[in-house]
C-alpha cells in the first residue's frame, strides 16, 4: 500500500460521523458570526440612535448624546446585557458538560410542561402571543419615530400613512401597476375547486350507503382512528393517512365520501377533479400548497381533517416509465397474466413477474403522462402527502433558534386523504405507496344482499306492490346493478307506471324498465312476416341451445324487437358470482353462438343469413383464445407469449414463419386447429337442434306472438310449464305443434319465393 493510500485510510478512520444531539456532552460550538451577531446588532442600533439624537440637536456633543441615549434607551442596553449573559452561558455550556447537562434537563422539563397543553391550545395561544408581540414591536418602533409613548404612537401611524399616501402611491404606482396584474391573476387563478364542509353541513350518513358494507366497515375504522387517534398512537402506531376507493362508476364512491363528511366530527374538504387544472405553470403547485396549508390549519384547529379528491385520476401520472413495477397495467395493453381471470402472476417469483411486466410496459414510455395535474402539481402533491416533516412557523423556526432552543418538530397533522377513481391504473404509482395512500379499497358491484338492500331502499321511497321474493329475483337478474342504475331503474319503472295511469309500481313495470334500460327503446319496426319468422327461429335456436347446454348462465330475456344495432337477442346473466371459467363452459358458449348458424341451415334448408356474423365472431374469438391462450386446445404453449417473442406457435400461427412449411405443419397451424374445433362444435350444435326441433319452433312461435320473453317464459315454453306471462303447456300439444310446423313450412317456401306465407300464424 502506497503512502498516500495509507494516509487516505488513516483520514477515513479518523472520520467520525456527526454526533447526535443526544450524544453530545457539551453544547455545539457557535461560529464567530453567531456569537457576535446580536451584540453587533444591538451596538449598531445603539449607535444609530446616538446618531439620530445628534442629528436632532445640532449643539449636542457626542459624549452627551451617548449619555442621553444610554438613559433614554435603557432597554436596548438591557437587551445587550442579556445577550452578553447569554453568550457567557453558551461559552460555559461549550466548556462544562455538567453545566450543559443541567440546562438540557431544564429545557426538556420546560418542553414537557409546555406539551401538556394540547396542540390545539398551544396553537391558539401562540397565535395570540404572536399577534401581541407584533403589535408591541410596532408600537415601540412607532413610538421612537413619533417621539410619543408607544401606545399613543400606534394611533398616529394610520394618520401618517394616510397623509403619506399620495406620495407613496406615486412612488409605488409603476411597481404596483405591473405586479398587481400578476398577483391578481394568480390569486384569482388559485382560488376555487376546494370546498370545506363542517360537521352538520351534510346530512348523509353511513346508513345511507347500501350494499358496500365491507368497504364501509374499513372506512369507518379509518374514521374512528381519526376521531380517536390516541387509540393507535399510544401504542406506537400512526393514523392511516390515505384511502383509495376505486371501482366501476356508479358504485357509490362519492356517496361514501359524502357519508364520511356527514359522519365525521372533523371538517371535510372536497377537492374538485378540475381543481388543479391551471393555465400557468406553477399555479397548480400553488394550489396544492395552499390546500395543504389550509388542511394543516384545520387539522390543528379541529384535531383532524378529511380531504377527498374526487376522480383522482385527473391528478394524472408521470408516465409509465416512472413506475416499472409489476402492479401497473393500463387498460389497452392489459396482459392476461395480470388479469383477474386466472391466478395471474401471483404464483411466480417477484423477479419473474417484474420481467414479464417490463417486457410488456416499458415500450409505452412516458406516453400516459399529463392528465389534469401536470406541471409539477402531482409532484408537489406527493411531497405534501409525505415530504420532509419540516418545522413550521416564525416563532418555532426563528425565535426558538434565537433563544438557543431547537425548533420543535411539527405536531402530528391528522389529515385523512381519501381519493376516488374509476381508473386506478391512471394514478401515479408513487401516489399509491403506503405512507401516502395506505389503504386501497375496491368499491365493486354490490353483492346480491347489497342489491336487495338498495332495491328496498329506493322502493321504500315510492309506492309499489313488489313482494320480497320479487325483489330477490330482481336482484338476482341484475348482477351488475349499481346504486346509480338501481335508482334509475326504479325511477324508470315509476315513469312507466305513471304513463299507464297508475301511481304504484308493479312487477311488470320493473321488468319493462329493466329491459328498457338494458336494451334501449325498441325501434317499433314491424318485420314482414317471413322475416319475423326467420328472426324468431334464429333467436329461438340460441335460446333453446342456451337452455339445454349452458348451465353457468341463465337466460335473462329473449326478444325479436329490433333495437338500434340488433334484430333480436337472447341475453343471459350469471345466476351466481363465479370467478373461474372452464373449458366446458366455453364450449357451451360456442355452441350457443353457433346455434344460430346451425339452426338457420337446419330450418331453412341449408340457407343462412348474414345475421350470424356477430355470433361467428364471438365463437371464433372464444375458440381462438381456448386454443391459443387458455390451454383448452390440443397444444399447451401460449400464443400471446409466442407472438410477443415472435417465435411462432406450434405448427406456426399468425405471424409465425409458416409460409414455406410442409403440408403436415400447415394442417396443424393455429387457425386450422381453431377451424377444426369450430367444425366439430357446429356438428354437435346441429345434432342438439335436430333433437329439439319442436322446442325451437314453439319458442319461435311464442316470440312471434309476444315479441319479448323473459328468461322464465323461455323456460316455460321449452319445458311446457307456466311462466310469468306465457303459459307453455299448449306447446306440448301435438295439434298445435303440427300447426306450427305447417306455418314454418309455409314461411320457408315464402322465404325462398319472396312472398307472403299462405298460412296464418296459428293462435292458441
Amino acid at each position, binding site marked *: 500500500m502506497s503512502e498516500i493510500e495509507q494516509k487516505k485510510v488513516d483520514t477515513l478512520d479518523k472520520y467520525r460521523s456527526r454526533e447526535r444531539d443526544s450524544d453530545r456532552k*457539551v453544547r455545539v*460550538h*457557535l*461560529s*464567530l458570526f453567531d*456569537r*457576535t451577531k446580536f*451584540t453587533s446588532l444591538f*451596538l449598531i442600533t*445603539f449607535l444609530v440612535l446616538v446618531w439620530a439624537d445628534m442629528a*436632532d*440637536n*445640532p*449643539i*449636542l*456633543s457626542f*459624549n*452627551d448624546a*451617548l*449619555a*442621553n*441615549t*444610554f*438613559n433614554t434607551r435603557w432597554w436596548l*442596553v438591557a437587551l*445587550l*446585557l442579556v*445577550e*452578553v449573559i447569554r*453568550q*457567557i452561558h453558551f*461559552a460555559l455550556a*461549550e*466548556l462544562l458538560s455538567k453545566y450543559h447537562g443541567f440546562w438540557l434537563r431544564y429545557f426538556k422539563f420546560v418542553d414537557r410542561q409546555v406539551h401538556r397543553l394540547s396542540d390545539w391550545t398551544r396553537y391558539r395561544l401562540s397565535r395570540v402571543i404572536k399577534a401581541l408581540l407584533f403589535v408591541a414591536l410596532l408600537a415601540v418602533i412607532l413610538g421612537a419615530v413619533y417621539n410619543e409613548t408607544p401606545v399613543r404612537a400606534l394611533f398616529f401611524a394610520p394618520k401618517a400613512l394616510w397623509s403619506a399616501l399620495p406620495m407613496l402611491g406615486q412612488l409605488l404606482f409603476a411597481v404596483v401597476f405591473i405586479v398587481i396584474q400578476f398577483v391578481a391573476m394568480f390569486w384569482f387563478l388559485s382560488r376555487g375547486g376546494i370546498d370545506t364542509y363542517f360537521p352538520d353541513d351534510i346530512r348523509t350518513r353511513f346508513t345511507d350507503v347500501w350494499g358496500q358494507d365491507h368497504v364501509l366497515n374499513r372506512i369507518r375504522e379509518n374514521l374512528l382512528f381519526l376521531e380517536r387517534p390516541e387509540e393507535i398512537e399510544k401504542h406506537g402506531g400512526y393514523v392511516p393517512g390515505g384511502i383509495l376507493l376505486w371501482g366501476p362508476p356508479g358504485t357509490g364512491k362519492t356517496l361514501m365520501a359524502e357519508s364520511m363528511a356527514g359522519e365525521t366530527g372533523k371538517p371535510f374538504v372536497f377537492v374538485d377533479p378540475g381543481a388543479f387544472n391551471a393555465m400557468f405553470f406553477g399555479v397548480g403547485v400553488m394550489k396544492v400548497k395552499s390546500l395543504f396549508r389550509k388542511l394543516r390549519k384545520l387539522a390543528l384547529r379541529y384535531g383532524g381533517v378529511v380531504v377527498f379528491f374526487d376522480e383522482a385520476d385527473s391528478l394524472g401520472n408521470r408516465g409509465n416509465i416512472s413506475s416499472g413495477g409489476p402492479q401497473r397495467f393500463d387498460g389497452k395493453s392489459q396482459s392476461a397474466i395480470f388479469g383477474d381471470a386466472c391466478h395471474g402472476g401471483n404464483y411466480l417469483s417477484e423477479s419473474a413477474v417484474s420481467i414479464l411486466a417490463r417486457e410488456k410496459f416499458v415500450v409505452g414510455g412516458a406516453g400516459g403522462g399529463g392528465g389534469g395535474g401536470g406541471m409539477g402539481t402531482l409532484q408537489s402533491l406527493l411531497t405534501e402527502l409525505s415530504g420532509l416533516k419540516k418545522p413550521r412557523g416564525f416563532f418555532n423556526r426563528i425565535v426558538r433558534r434565537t433563544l438557543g432552543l431547537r425548533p420543535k418538530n411539527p405536531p402530528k397533522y391528522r389529515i385523512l386523504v381519501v381519493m376516488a377513481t374509476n381508473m386506478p391504473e391512471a394514478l401515479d404509482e408513487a401516489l399509491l405507496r403506503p405512507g401516502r395512500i395506505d389503504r386501497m379499497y375496491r368499491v365493486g358491484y354490490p353483492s346480491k344482499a347489497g342489491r336487495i338492500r338498495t332495491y328496498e331502499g329506493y322502493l321504500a321511497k315510492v309506492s309499489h306492490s313488489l313482494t320480497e321474493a320479487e325483489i330477490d329475483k330482481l336482484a338476482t337478474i341484475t348482477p351488475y346493478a349499481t346504486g346509480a342504475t338501481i335508482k334509475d331503474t326504479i325511477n324508470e319503472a315509476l315513469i312507466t307506471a305513471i304513463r299507464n295511469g297508475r301511481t304504484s309500481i308493479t312487477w311488470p313495470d320493473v321488468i319493462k324498465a329493466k329491459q328498457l334500460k338494458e336494451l334501449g327503446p325498441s325501434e317499433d319496426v314491424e318485420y314482414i312476416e317471413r322475416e319475423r319468422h326467420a328472426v324468431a327461429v334464429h333467436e329461438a335456436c340460441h335460446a333453446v341451445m342456451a337452455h339445454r347446454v349452458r348451465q353457468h348462465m341463465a337466460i335473462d330475456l329473449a326478444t325479436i324487437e329490433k333495437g338500434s344495432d340488433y334484430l333480436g337477442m337472447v341475453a343471459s346473466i350469471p345466476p351466481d358470482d363465479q370467478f373461474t371459467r372452464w373449458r366446458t363452459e366455453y364450449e357451451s358458449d360456442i355452441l350457443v353462438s353457433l346455434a344460430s348458424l346451425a339452426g338457420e341451415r337446419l330450418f331453412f334448408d341449408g340457407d343462412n343469413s348474414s345475421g350470424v356474423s356477430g355470433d361467428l365472431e364471438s365463437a371464433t374469438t372464444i375458440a381462438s383464445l381456448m386454443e391459443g391462450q387458455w390451454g383448452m386446445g390440443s397444444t399447451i404453449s401460449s400464443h400471446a407469449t409466442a407472438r410477443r417473442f415472435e417465435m411462432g406457435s406450434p405448427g406456426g400461427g399468425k405471424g409465425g414463419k409458416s409460409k414455406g412449411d410442409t403440408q403436415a405443419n400447415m394442417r396443424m397451424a393455429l387457425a386450422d386447429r381453431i377451424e377444426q374445433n369450430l367444425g366439430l362444435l357446429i356438428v354437435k350444435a346441429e345434432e342438439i337442434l335436430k333433437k329439439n326441433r319442436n322446442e325451437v319452433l314453439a319458442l319461435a312461435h311464442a316470440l312471434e306472438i309476444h315479441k319479448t320473453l323473459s328468461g322464465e317464459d323461455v323456460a316455460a315454453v321449452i319445458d311446457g310449464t307456466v311462466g310469468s306471462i306465457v303459459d307453455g303447456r299448449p306447446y306440448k300439444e301435438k295439434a298445435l305443434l303440427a300447426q306450427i310446423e305447417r306455418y314454418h313450412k309455409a314461411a320457408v317456401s315464402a322465404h325462398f319465393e319472396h312472398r307472403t306465407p299462405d298460412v296464418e300464424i296459428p293462435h292458441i
Partner: protein
Amino acid sequence: MLKSPLLALRSVPVVIAIAMSFLLSSCGSATQQYPAFKKEGVYFAVPNNWHEITTKQLNAQEALATDADAKDRAAMVQWQVAYSTDKAITPAEVFNLNSVDAPVVLARVRSLFPDESNSVSNNSLRNMVVPLTTWVTEPTATTPVYEIFDDQDRIEKGARGVRTVFSFTLHGEKQSIDQTALLSPDRSTIYVLLIRCSSLCFEKNKAAITKIAESFTVRGNK
C-alpha cells in the same frame, strides 16, 4: 476542519470587551442640559447644575399681568424657558428687571404682530429689554448709567440679529445683561436669549454665561 474549542471561545472575551467598553463609556449622565424648541429649531445648552423654571411656570406668571393687551402678547409667545444657578429664583424674578445675585437665563420664541413685524429692526432688537438705542442716541437726564461691552451681528442658519452685552444701573444696583435677539427671515418670529445678573455675579460667571450665549442656535422653522 474542527476548530479547537479554546480557539473558538477566544471570541467570547472580545465580544464582551467591546460591549462593555461601550456601555461603560456611555454610562453616567450628560455634562449639560439641552433645552430645545424643535418646531423653530431653537437650541442652547446650560450646565447640569442649573435649575429649570419651566415653560408652564413662566406662562402662568405672564398670565397674571392685567393690562389690556397682555393676553394678546402672551398668546404670541410660542416657547419660553428659564434656568438659574439658584433654586430660589421665582418666575416673577425672571421677568422683572431687578438685579439678581444668581445668573438667570431666559430663552423665548415669540411671533410678532403685523405692525411689529413691519417696524422691527436691529435697533429695536437691541431695545428688547431696555431702550438701549435711545440711551445712546438721545441721552437725557433720566438716562441711567450704562456701559456697552460688546455689540455684534449674529447670523444663524434660521435667523439673524444682534448680540449685545451691556450693563446698567437701576435703583442703584448695577447689573449686566448678555442679550441675543434674532429675527426670522420672514420677519414673523423673534428668538431671544437673555442672560443677566448683578455685574459682580456676571463677572464671576462670565465663562459659563458666554458659553451659554454662544451655544444659542437657531435653525429656523423647517
